[in-house]
């Protein structure tokens, strides 16, 4: 079984977001770039599956759409344990464009399971995984919180509103994974970091595809009014404020 893990390159989640001039993009000065947290968990789970020889996972490839600037993040994925990587050399302009590029990679290389994190921590869209599957006309399962391989067949748990379902889907399919898929992200070992230096990153040219959306301007969230403190000895005052000032209980 061949598995493709799609990764996105995002600012470290503790980054204080500042905007570049024109407020269309963020100011990238001093930003630490990381693998999108959900993609990191998805890569971790995929590698756990490969570690189990009975699971039949033969190879784990990571794919990314981005410019050469994102190679350190791809190397990190290789250091964590992916076998090889594909980078589509293009600016990731919108989800539709990115999904079109990744779908083309999958068309060429044929994978059994395509793993995507449920969203990226930058644009929070939850779009690329579903779009890839539709471009390819293959099934997809969203909100996957567990993936196991039992007797050669992938078995997943998906979260639904107020519950969960155990689901099987014939390969090839796209698994869109969320919290629970792996406990802690796997950390690269020193050996992994050394080995990653010689692992191949294949660079593909982008195919012609449109972007259907465009960010016109970014703005800061509205600032909240300062916190009103209530005496710890008198929480009844809090109830009064919630009832009569905020009017929410």
């Amino acid at each position, binding site marked *: 079984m061949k598995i493709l893990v799609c990764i996105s390159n995002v600012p470290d*989640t*503790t*980054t204080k*977001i500042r905007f570049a001039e024109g407020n269309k993009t963020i100011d990238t000065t001093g930003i630490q770039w990381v693998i999108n*947290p*959900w993609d990191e*968990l998805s890569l971790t789970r995929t590698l756990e599956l490969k570690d189990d020889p009975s699971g039949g996972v033969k190879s784990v490839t990571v794919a990314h759409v981005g410019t050469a600037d994102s190679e350190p993040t791809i190397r990190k994925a290789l250091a964590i344990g992916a076998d090889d990587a594909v980078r589509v050399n293009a600016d990731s302009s*919108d989800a*539709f464009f990115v*999904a079109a590029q990744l779908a083309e990679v999958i068309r060429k290389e044929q994978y059994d399971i395509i793993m995507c994190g449920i969203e990226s*921590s*930058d*644009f*929070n*869209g*939850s*779009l*690329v995984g*579903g779009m890839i*599957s*539709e471009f390819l006309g293959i*099934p997809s*399962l969203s*909100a996957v919180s567990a993936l196991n391989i039992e007797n050669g067949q992938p078995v997943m748990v998906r979260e639904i*509103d*107020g*519950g*969960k*379902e*155990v*689901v*099987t*889907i*014939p390969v090839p399919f796209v698994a869109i994974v*969320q*919290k*629970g898929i792996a406990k802690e992200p796997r950390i690269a070992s020193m050996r992994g970091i050394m080995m990653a230096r010689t692992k191949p990153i294949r660079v593909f040219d982008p195919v012609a595809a449109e*972007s*259907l*959306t*465009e*960010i*016109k301007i*970014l703005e800061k*969230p509205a600032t*909240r*009014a300062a*916190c*009103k403190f*209530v*005496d*710890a*000895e008198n*929480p*009844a005052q*809090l*109830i009064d404020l919630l009832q009569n000032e*905020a009017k*929410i*209980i």
Partner: protein
Amino acid sequence: MSVLVYTENWDGKFKKLTFELVSYASAVAEMLNTEVTALSIGNVDEKELKTLGQYGAEKIINVTDENLKILDSQTYTNVISDIASNTGSEVIIISNNNTGKAVAPRLSVRLKAGIGAGVTRLPLSLNPFTVYKKTYSGNAFAHVVIKSDIKIITLAQNSFDPVEKPASATIENIQVNIDRSLIKTNIKDTQKQTGRIVLTDADIVVSGGRGMKSPDNWGPIEELAELLGAATACSRPVADEGWRPIGEHTGQTGKIIAPNLYIAVGISGAIQHLAGISGSKCIVAINTDKDAPIFEAADFGIVGDAFKVLPKLIEAVKVMKS
């Protein structure tokens, strides 16, 4: 030209988020000077369908087939795209919940429709069609222009209040025949959470963090939640330690929620936690550390020991309710 809103049901019933969607769709339709068609998929009785009319749906299309009990993203995409084409819909509105996330991106490719995902306000302008959405996990908001002819909006839960706007809705029933062999999603087992408030639906959430010190100390959190009709939640370390179920983890990588009231007890308020709760209308923080970042996000705060504050707070709620 019309606005199409997909109104999901849960065992044949709609819930608040459905009415938020219909109200939102109705407001968008008003901006576009057109009407709202609501699409319901699966078995919902006429009385329940009619409730959509209370929020401004002028036409209700009810598509049924036994096989639609299975949420298969491809099948649902087929149904919704067919109806969107038949009604000539230019704007399609879906929830940004798990179902929406499963279906909307497929629909986007099928209809070549740009998508504004997790939108929290009415469109900022119609020409160019511009929506407002959260980015960088709540640390920024973006004005996003959708350039395609057909536009999809997935609406963030609890970001638009339902508005009653009675319309005399007509219902069109469409019985389709879905070939079971084409459904690739095989459901082996379903586990439904019973008797408890679903976290993402809750108006009030009481959440505990590491400051609660041990899983054995959750009694007061649960009691307060019970009294307020609230759901319970927790911070990431608490879920990772196994003190509470993973499904309760609220934060960037856990559940993103936007209740009317979020009460954070013993949660310091790391940026990743705030990313999951910043959409809450009112935030209350109880923490021993007056410098904890949670107080910067909070509207009301109590600096104090949760184990001393909670019993008093519970008493105060009991007094309020009596």
